[in-house]
């Protein structure tokens, strides 16, 4: 039951992009095609889940026992940067098709604040456990994917629309994101 609540909360109610504003850069940057947004979502799903697993263990078994909590930000960002590199190397060797699909997105993920944000947020869960933290990261990456893919599908339609000159580009995208966020606001109170 706990896990169902986490899932619904992360995907709909507190959607990481549309209500927590994490990962806005890739959300606006790689959402012009549905196919690329699916690739990006896959890469985020992969990296976010692994990164949270590693940072959670590191926080509980290295930083906490030695009283080095103030190094959290530095260690987490380094771990994520190293991890992204490693995932890239391993994928290239082990699963070339997956690498083909996700490869170009992986370097972009290091500076995706959603990954670091979720790793930090996962430490603050009630009655946290490793499993819960990992599930939280997984659920949030699904939320990221949902927001990104829905947004990309709308943007594909926008290309055919007749938009006033001054609103082309950034403003219209932000407005669409705002309306999408408004729609997700409807889920508030669900959990």
């Amino acid at each position, binding site marked *: 039951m706990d896990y169902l609540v986490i899932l619904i909360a992360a995907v709909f109610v507190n959607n990481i992009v549309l209500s927590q504003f994490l990962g806005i850069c890739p959300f606006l940057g790689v959402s012009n095609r549905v196919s690329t947004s699916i690739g990006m979502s896959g890469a985020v799903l992969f990296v976010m889940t692994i990164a949270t697993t590693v940072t959670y263990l590191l926080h509980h078994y290295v930083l906490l026992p030695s009283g080095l909590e103030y190094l959290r*930000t530095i260690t987490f960002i380094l771990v994520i940067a190293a991890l992204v590199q490693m995932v890239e190397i391993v994928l290239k060797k082990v699963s070339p098709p997956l690498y083909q699909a996700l490869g170009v997105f992986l370097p972009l993920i290091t500076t995706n604040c959603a990954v670091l944000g979720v790793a930090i947020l996962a430490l603050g869960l009630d009655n946290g456990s490793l499993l819960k933290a990992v599930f939280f990261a997984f659920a949030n990456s699904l939320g990221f994917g949902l927001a990104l893919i829905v947004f990309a599908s709308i943007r594909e339609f926008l290309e055919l629309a007749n938009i006033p000159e001054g609103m082309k580009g950034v403003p219209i995208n932000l407005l669409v994101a*705002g309306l999408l966020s408004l729609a997700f606001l409807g889920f508030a109170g669900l959990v």
Partner: protein
Amino acid sequence: MAKPIDQQQNFFKGIVKENPVFVMLLGMCPALGVTSSAFNGLGMGVATLFVLLMSNIVVSLVKSQIPNKVRIPAFIIIIASFVTIVEMVLEAYIPFLYEQLGIFIPLIVVNCLILGRAEAFASKNTLKSSVLDALGMGLGFVIALTVLGAVREVLGNGSIFDWKFVSEDANTLILFILPPGAFIALAYLAILFNRLTLKTA
């Protein structure tokens, strides 16, 4: 360096022509996430300005010592150190702001604006140019966040810098302090900004 940089232009480009939020769309997460009031926007802007300035100074001083291949991780460590300092100072001296900004303080590390300036500017230019670049870009960020925060606070809460100018039970457009309002307010500010800069150009 082919020709010396016009320092005045170097400083002002960050405020108008290459404004990080309205034009370059850098650092969007904090720009949208913490601007539910003008004070929060200002606080976040100043914290980012400090980190940007310090990291630009350090990067431009040590640029010749860092091997090219590991420069990005090196920059990230420099930035993360200053973010940790900001985090501890805010927690100790302005706990109210620390709580309001929450997760977005450690996330200054991944603000693409800071890494972007370190990589694109400070690692290639002199100390003086880097300081001016950081001040200009940082001020552009502070202004953008404060304006966005002020607009959202005025519309959504009927107040500015916590000074309320409507009665307690007045109906305000609460939407603007909720998440969707951030996107919508920034969209209209971007239109306005484009309009103004196009006119002067």
